[in-house]
């Protein structure tokens, strides 16, 4: 329930982004704080294996629930795992932003940063990068807009690609959901509208 509350509150905050530029800063700060808190509570380094990551997800889900029941920190995503489809495969529901972020990521970013943002031989693991405390929402948007030259490679500026430049918030939601451990690897499902 706490998760849903956050989802709604976050959506409201995103709505304000559209109308008030100043509100963006507020939103960003809130989200960054949430990130910092999550970093502080663990997952400082990358999971070593799928099994460990899955275990981390379970632990994290509990953690997120616990924390959210006692405080009201806005996170840019909402994740509801533990569903099972007809074939017995588990899946997670996510909010619309996180879902669109997942899709944008796997349409554009995955050819370098690989499936589920785990990194490839020529582009870094973004989960590790998102967990670093300097990765604020502002820096995230700036890196995407202007591109970046790293130790190994070059990321192109995305500001001229409308398919990506319109989706920074959604990408941020998806990647923070992944980096925090709330969202396991794989394809999430969009939470039904009526829910």
């Amino acid at each position, binding site marked *: 329930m706490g998760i849903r509350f956050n989802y709604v509150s976050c959506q409201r905050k995103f709505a304000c982004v559209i109308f008030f530029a100043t509100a963006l800063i507020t939103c960003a700060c809130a989200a960054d704080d949430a990130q910092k808190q999550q970093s502080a509570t663990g997952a400082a380094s990358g999971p070593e*294996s*799928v*099994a460990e990551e899955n275990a981390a997800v379970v632990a994290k889900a509990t953690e997120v629930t616990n924390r959210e029941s006692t405080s009201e920190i806005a996170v840019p995503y909402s994740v509801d795992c533990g569903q099972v489809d007809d074939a017995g*495969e*588990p899946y997670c529901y996510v909010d619309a932003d996180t879902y669109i972020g*997942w*899709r944008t990521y*796997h*349409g*554009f970013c*995955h*050819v*370098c940063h*690989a*499936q*589920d943002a*785990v990194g*490839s*031989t*020529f582009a870094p693991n973004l989960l590790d990068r998102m967990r670093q405390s300097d990765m604020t929402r502002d820096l995230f948007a700036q890196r995407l807009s202007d*591109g970046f*030259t790293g130790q*190994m*490679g*070059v*990321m*192109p500026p995305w500001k*001229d*690609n*409308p*398919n990506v430049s319109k989706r920074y918030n959604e990408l941020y939601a998806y990647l923070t959901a992944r980096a925090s451990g709330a969202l*396991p*690897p*794989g*394809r999430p499902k969009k939470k039904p509208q009526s829910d």
Partner: protein
Amino acid sequence: MKNRLFVMIGFALALVMPGMSTANDELMKLMDDPNNWAIWGGNYAGQRYSKLNQINNKNVGDLQVAWTFSTGVLRGHEGGPLVIGDTLYVHTPFPNKVFAIDLNDQTIIWRYEPKQDPDTIPVMCCDTVYRGLAYADGKIFLQQADTHLVALNAKTGEMIWRVKNGDPKKGATNTNAPVVVKDKVLTGISGGEFGVQGFLAAYNISDGKLAWKGYSTGPDDQTLIDPVKTTHLGKPVGKNSGTNTWKGDQWKIGGGTTWGWYSYDPQLNLVYYGTGNPSTWNPVVRPGDNRWSMTIFARDLDTGMAKWVYQMTPHDEWDYDGINEMILADIKVKGKDRKVLVHFDRNGFGYTLDRVTGELLVAEKFDPAVNWATHVDMKTGRPNVVAQYSTHQNGEDVNTENVCPAALGTKDQQPAAFSPRTNLFYVPTNHVCMDYEPFEVEYTAGQPYVGATLSMFPAGRVTGDGTNNLGNFIAWDASAGKIVWSLPERFSVWSGALATAGDVVFYGTLEGYLKAVDAKSGKELYKFKTPSGIIGNVNTWNHKGKQYVGVLSGIGGWAGIGMAAGLTGDTDGLGAVGAYRALDNFTQLGGVMTVFALPD
């Protein structure tokens, strides 16, 4: 023997036909002498077969490392070295260095490092790979990533001429090895993910002047297709076949890029190559067959005019680029001697065609996991698509699940080999499936134009056979369209194969092993772990009476992403999850050439 005859007929023709350059004669002689490895495929037929037999299936177990060479470059190393006489020429991924190495003492005779715009890197889909050089007429031809085609003096490394082949600002780059035939050097273009209009171009080797350019899509004067004389499965293609299966002007950003390997038949004077995926990846917004993406082309070398075409995957819905190598061989099909072209497509079908007429003879799955089509209709040449796996029929914003193969194909560019001694083809393959979801995207020049999400996992998750390997190395009978033997590999097999007269077949693995297997039985005879994962091609040559086998290591390329498939997906029910732990537990980056020989 057949092979030799084939080359000799070609050579004889070259002597009597007017207007032929002596460069061609020289190259033909070099290719016919197994001491050299003068072209990517060993010969124009792209067979990757050597007549050398000093290393054979009895003694290959004694193989040792003779010498090694670091390229100083970290990215994915595809392709392999050329050997002309006493000199070995080896290339690297971006920045596309070239080294000429003296085989007598392994010293560097000259090196060449082009200055290239680093902005080229981000517009190269899937790593900055480069598949190799071409030699002819005392020149080394280098196809740079930024599309510059360069002729270097083979003795000194000095630049003789340079020509620009495309515009990286619009997403056009190059990764292919050029090929020299007669007085022309052939090259293609990459950038299907950026809406580039693909083409094959022929430049004069003397001065770099463009001789002809045949686009994959567009009106007849651009595609160099004759509405009457150019045929598709024996029938004339008709007027403007490169535009009339596209909506409006979509053919202009239609893809059909040409980043694979090119083969040539000197007797027929035809060049063979394949074209890549139509842009965007989202099939819903580009109705029609999208001709001539996903097509095998046979073009006249002198004029560029297309003699025949065959579209393998009309209206691609899965990114099954048709660019893989075309292997030319003379084999019996259904009891009849045929001049064939054999092609292992990304789409999972192994095709055998009559290379004279373009008639389709065999089309069978070379991985039993392939499920997107039940079969290929031998009359129409069209695949019978299974509705469940049609990403178009399922539509935008619908996730089509468990499609086999994945977008990286049952086989990517890594070229197969053919042995005329066994009449078998040796094929490095992927064993990976995917979920695929098209969605709407806007086109902007120079920006990726993809429009589909992709997640990949081991094929065993779909077949339910309890396996979890991501690759196989197979022997294929192209006459019957049947797998003769299949060796499972933990990861995709992303290295070009080599077959030799010693009845040994070589290939590399992503963990970094060079492996030698028996050509008849597939029995593993030798393996050695090189410094990094192998996505390069295994080549062989002879120097001062000794046979050498050389291969580039250097993990990267699309394999650098593809290897992670299954590592991170939903692994429930698979069991041995550990099998999919990241490849970086097995190998690290780094370009090194390792050269093997028998002990003295």
